[in-house]
């Protein structure tokens, strides 16, 4: 009996001490701080949407009918808002960029996941990271000073290319996305289980057959993700397009011509301190909305595909 009461009193003293209560209180405060920090990134997104939409809608309601015209000159008087040249310019540069960036990026990914030895991989990966770290202004400079005058002006067969060319911007954009394609696709291909490779080798497949027919197929959703994310990156690239393709929104089918992309228009029109409410100010928000929501859709899609291969193999 006495023993029992003894145990009982012991249990009572197990109630949270003042010290523990203080620690728990501290934890509660820290959790509140962390929640506040987490909300910041939500506010940023909300902020982007709120900064873009009102101006966009206001301008849209005024110019809806002009939007599908073929002359883009919002800064002139009278302004013209035909967005077609921006869309063709963007498409041209992004497509050329993908044509360059995707083959090289995928080649690098296959090389890293199936051909490179551990030590080669340890050297190649950081160099790819350095390539990814080259600022766009430097890539733009290379396009403007070297690619355009030394190669494109001299050898481009159609028309008479001058200082600014769409194809130059496309090529430099392609180089920009090589490391993006390579690293996302390499993640996917490397996470394909060894057992699948070994099973294929055991059936007599060659290295290429394993890499292309087994690993590449198994990691396809990751490869698709790589392409989508690279597309989104190329689509939003501003500085390269501005420096290499110039700022003349020409409606043209010749990649050797100067052209303007949606992103490079924002950069171009934003340089001259645009007054709030002016045409220049309003149009950069309109084009910004287009840019933001298009990349948003592609990023969501791309991340879906990444989640899919993670689910399958990790």
């Amino acid at each position, binding site marked *: 009996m006495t023993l029992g009461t003894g145990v009982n009193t012991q249990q009572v003293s197990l109630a949270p001490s003042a010290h523990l209560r203080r*620690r728990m209180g*501290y934890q509660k405060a820290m959790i509140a701080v962390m929640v506040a*920090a987490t909300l910041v*990134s939500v506010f940023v997104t909300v902020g982007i949407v709120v900064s873009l939409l009102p101006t966009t809608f206001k301008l849209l309601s005024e110019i809806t009918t002009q939007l599908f015209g073929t002359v883009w000159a919002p800064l002139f008087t009278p302004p013209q808002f035909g967005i077609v040249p921006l869309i063709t310019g963007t498409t041209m540069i992004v497509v050329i960029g993908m044509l360059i960036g995707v083959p*090289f990026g995928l080649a690098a990914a296959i090389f890293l996941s199936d051909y490179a030895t551990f030590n080669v991989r340890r050297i190649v990966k950081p160099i*790819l990271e350095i*390539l990814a770290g080259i600022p766009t202004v430097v890539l733009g400079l290379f396009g403007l000073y070297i690619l355009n005058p030394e190669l494109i002006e001299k050898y481009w067969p159609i028309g008479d290319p001058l200082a600014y060319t769409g194809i130059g911007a496309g090529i430099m954009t392609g180089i920009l996305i090589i490391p993006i394609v390579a690293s996302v696709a390499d993640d996917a291909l490397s996470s394909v289980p060894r057992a699948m490779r070994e099973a294929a080798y055991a059936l007599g497949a060659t290295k*290429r057959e394993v890499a292309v027919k087994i690993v590449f197929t198994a990691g396809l959703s990751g490869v698709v993700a790589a392409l989508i994310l690279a597309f989104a990156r190329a689509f939003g690239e501003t*500085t390269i397009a501005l420096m290499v393709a110039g700022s003349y929104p020409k409606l043209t089918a010749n990649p050797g011509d100067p052209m303007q992309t949606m992103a490079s228009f924002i950069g171009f029109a934003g340089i001259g301190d645009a007054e709030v409410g002016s045409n220049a100010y309003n149009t950069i928000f309109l084009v910004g909305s287009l*840019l933001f929501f298009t990349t948003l859709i592609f990023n969501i899609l791309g991340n879906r595909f990444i989640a899919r291969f993670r689910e399958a193999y990790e």
Partner: protein
Amino acid sequence: MSNTNKVSLESRLSARRIFIDGIFRFFLLLSVTFALGFIFVIVYRLWRNAGWLLSWDLIKNFPSYDIDSAGFQSSITGSIWVVGVATLIALPIGALTALYLESFSNKKSKLQKLVELNIQNLAGVPAVVFGLIGLAFIARGPFSWGFTVGSAAMVIAMLILPVIIIITRESIRAVPPSFKEGALALGATPWQAVYRLVLPYAIPGTATGTILAVSRAIGESAPLLLLGALSFVTFNPTGLDSGFTILPLAIFKYASDSREEFQVLASAGSLILLAILFAMNLSAILLRDRTLRKRNV
């Protein structure tokens, strides 16, 4: 008879397959060499163009239209100011967010999924769009901070925040769960376990990632185009309210003039920028290697 036939067929087939394999390997190597070699081509051409101009004077002088006395001091200090302040803002917020999402929140809740999706997408928003929110809310509009170091730092902070969150989460996830479990078993509160054990272990990974994020931010030019940074600034920033320019846009500025000597200046600026970024990348790589080696032993 049928046996020999089979054998010869097989050997011919495999010779063809081996040949294709060889060609495939050759093209892979060629592509990778091209992609990696491009870095050297860029550096070599910039060097041939402007290597002779590199000197301490180039770093110490202020911008000028006279090539002999032109330099990049104000843009280098501007870049340090902007990116430095941005890191001071984004790193604590990002680290706390990562800690919360990894260690405290309910991982299965819909809200968490939404927040994660948001961060992922924020990381993919084109940089120039951050310039737009900066223009609408920070430089003009509610904050009306003007084209200052403070405005620019806030824009760059928003740009690197999602990257820092993602990187920190990854390095927190790499901490063995036994660390936290052991501390909890000894009576630590979850916060104590996370703050004293999980976070210190995650610091090298976070530091590596932050260096990479910051080096991206230093090279970023598009969003600050919209914040008036493309201007001829002949003074160092003195505080958050000061006007500024940054190194990438100083390069851009020289590049938008087609005269020969400005090409040289722009190339020289690019060499300085690349040198800074290579140094940062190298330190990140060394830090990562050292941490990995220490932990494997």
